[in-house]
């Protein structure tokens, strides 16, 4: 299948369009809300909540005998929410730390859900087929009505996020200050966590329990590398999420037997890797390059000072000095020629004749300025 055909299908093939749209919605919501989770050091909360949602889904089915996505999502929401509250309580009332509480809730809730699921599957009127798609996610089974539901819920979640933007921002960065200003921190905390649970529940059907945690952490972690502004980070997180959702859908649609969820996760992982390497200011490559520039600049300044010293020792004449002399003066002789070239580019030094260097007027001024600063 060639690329143009793929893009044609993206708009006109029912399944591909539905799945791409669903994944994009999921990416936007999880990227935006994940930004808050990552900043609040709750990266793994998504992992725990997505596992904890399973018993909620099965119980919702057991109680109502309905497979309406809305009802199952509601069950997942309640279970995820209870799991979060339980974790908070355990951490607050015992010496058990956050990580153990997360692992505990994750495995126990999930195991309980599994028990319920296998129990349900053996009931006589087993109309529950499809419940286990929440385990691993089956994006291909998304229906247009599912996507509409996801869209509506997402719009509500994002609207709430915008409505409480200032408050959420405050409790993310300085909860004590927020409390001292009289904001209902506990309520806001619960609201923000609830929105996160909503984002996770939306994604379960597409990418499944195990991979949902990546959709919370990864777009946000990638966005964090590019900016120090919360608003930009949330927008970028949503963008990265949507990008990986759509590209993952396209790639998995282009080949046989390529499950959508894992491909989406790999796409977002590539974005994270790229961001960590090449992001401006924070990226590893960027940093390495900046360090290199700094080192070169310092070396050039040292050579500039050496040249100025030489000029003072020979005040009588306008003469140049060979790079061999400068090399002898420098603690790092190999960098001298590069430093001279740099000084020449900056207009501080010029080559009078072959390998005979002197300061220009502005070079003398600069050397004087730096000397004064050093003193």
């Amino acid at each position: 299948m060639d690329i143009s055909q793929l893009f044609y299908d993206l708009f006109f093939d029912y399944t591909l369009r539905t799945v791409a749209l669903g994944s994009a919605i999921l990416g936007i919501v999880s990227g935006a809300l994940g930004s808050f989770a990552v900043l609040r050091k709750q990266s793994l909360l998504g992992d725990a909540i997505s596992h904890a949602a399973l018993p909620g889904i099965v119980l919702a089915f057991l109680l109502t005998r309905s497979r309406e996505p809305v009802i199952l999502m509601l069950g997942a929401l309640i279970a995820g929410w209870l799991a979060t509250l339980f974790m908070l309580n355990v951490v607050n009332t015992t010496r058990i730390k956050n990580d153990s509480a997360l692992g505990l809730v994750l495995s126990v809730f999930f195991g309980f859900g599994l028990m319920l699921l296998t129990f349900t599957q053996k009931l006589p009127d087993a109309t529950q087929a499809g419940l286990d798609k929440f385990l691993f996610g089956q994006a291909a089974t998304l229906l247009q009505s599912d996507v509409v539901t996801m869209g509506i819920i997402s719009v509500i979640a994002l609207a709430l996020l915008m409505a409480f933007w200032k408050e959420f921002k405050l409790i993310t960065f300085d909860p004590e200050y927020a409390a001292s200003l009289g904001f209902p921190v506990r309520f806001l905390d619960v609201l923000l966590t609830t929105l996160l649970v909503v984002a996770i529940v939306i994604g379960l059907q597409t990418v499944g329990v195990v991979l949902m945690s990546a959709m919370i952490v990864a777009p946000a972690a990638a966005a964090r590398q590019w900016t120090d502004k919360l608003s930009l980070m949330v927008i970028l997180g949503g963008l990265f999420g949507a990008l990986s959702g759509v590209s993952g859908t396209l790639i998995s649609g282009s080949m046989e037997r390529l499950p959508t969820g894992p491909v989406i996760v790999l796409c977002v992982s590539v974005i994270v890797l790229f961001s960590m390497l090449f992001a401006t200011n924070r990226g590893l490559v960027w940093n390495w390059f900046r360090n290199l520039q700094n080192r070169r600049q310092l070396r050039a300044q040292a050579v500039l000072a050496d040249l100025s010293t030489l000029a003072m020792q020979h005040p009588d004449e306008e003469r140049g000095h060979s790079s061999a002399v400068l090399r002898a003066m420098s603690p790092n002789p190999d960098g001298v020629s590069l430093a001279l070239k740099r000084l020449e580019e900056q207009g501080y030094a010029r080559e009078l004749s072959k390998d005979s260097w002197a300061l220009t007027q502005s070079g003398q001024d600069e050397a004087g300025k730096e000397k004064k600063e050093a003193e």
Partner: protein
Amino acid sequence: MSSAQFEILLIASFVAVACALPGVFLVLRRMAMMSDAISHTVLLGIVIAFFITKSLTSPLLLIGAALMGVLTVSLVELLNRTQLVREDAAIGLVFPAIFSIAVILISRFAGNVHIDTDAVLLGELAFAPFNRVKLFGLDFGPEALYITGGILLLNIIFIAAFYKELKLATFDAALAAALGFSPILIHYALMTSVSLTAVGAFDAVGSVLVVAFMIAPPAAAYLLTDRLSRMLIYSALIGIFSAVSGYWLAYLLDASIAGSMATMTGASFLLSYLLAPERGLLAQARRRQNQRIEFALTMLTMHIANHTAAHEAEIENEVVHLNEHLKWTPQFAMEVVGIADRMGLVQQREGLLTLTESGLKRANQEFSN
């Protein structure tokens, strides 16, 4: 109980103890979520080793998986050291990516082979007795029994041999480093043990149960004792209890064995959380209640001692007036006065309270503080 059931229970108990031992150190070292990460990423190790050996029973699978576990830990540390993401985010980034690669490899190249993601994540303990070790035509019991037993033995030897080092590195890493024990070496040794345990166990019980057995029993034991040695023993016992009771729960409901066992580890934790003698919720509530009463008794004696002069005593020291002077509800006032009376701190005469000798002593002691 049939012999197959007995074998299942034995395997499950081996897994429970094998998981609980390194789990104790994970919980204490605040690295519990590492077990979640490792138990997922070992899948890739298994898949790669499977592609190389073309066999599902080769011991290379174990080694490949253990290596992948250690690689996961190193990757998390590598990400962590760039300081671009926090440690929890690093875990959340690494393991889904590795797990995704494994799932893709399985569905693309091994679709017709018997390693599917369901079996790995959820485990199927019920089938464990069918895969038997046969030598010279003799039946030596199920294979899983030997694998899990071997891993259990390895873990016991590891912890027994390095008990002192593990203890020191866990509770005072700086001192351990100063004394010349490398905390990094101990860290990686522990992580290798966790990886091996995860692989050996999840073949039998699935990765979710591995996490449950590694975290829940040690967390429950953590609330019961302050001694490392006891915590190890309690964790192992709680693990065995969860395994056995979980099996019968599954039998009763005809449900997933792994899921039921995980549920029982949760139930065990809940019991410990509620009833632990000092750190449980009930003990905490009782302690708070006792402190409240103790404080109220002291308040009462001080209040009466302050108002012993006859003209004041008339209005201040009547039981019915305590609620307005001490801001107590009438009910609570009656309760406190009743207790004080029984303890011989006060005497009641026609609704009027006076201090006894010991009551006066208590008030004066408080005043002099």
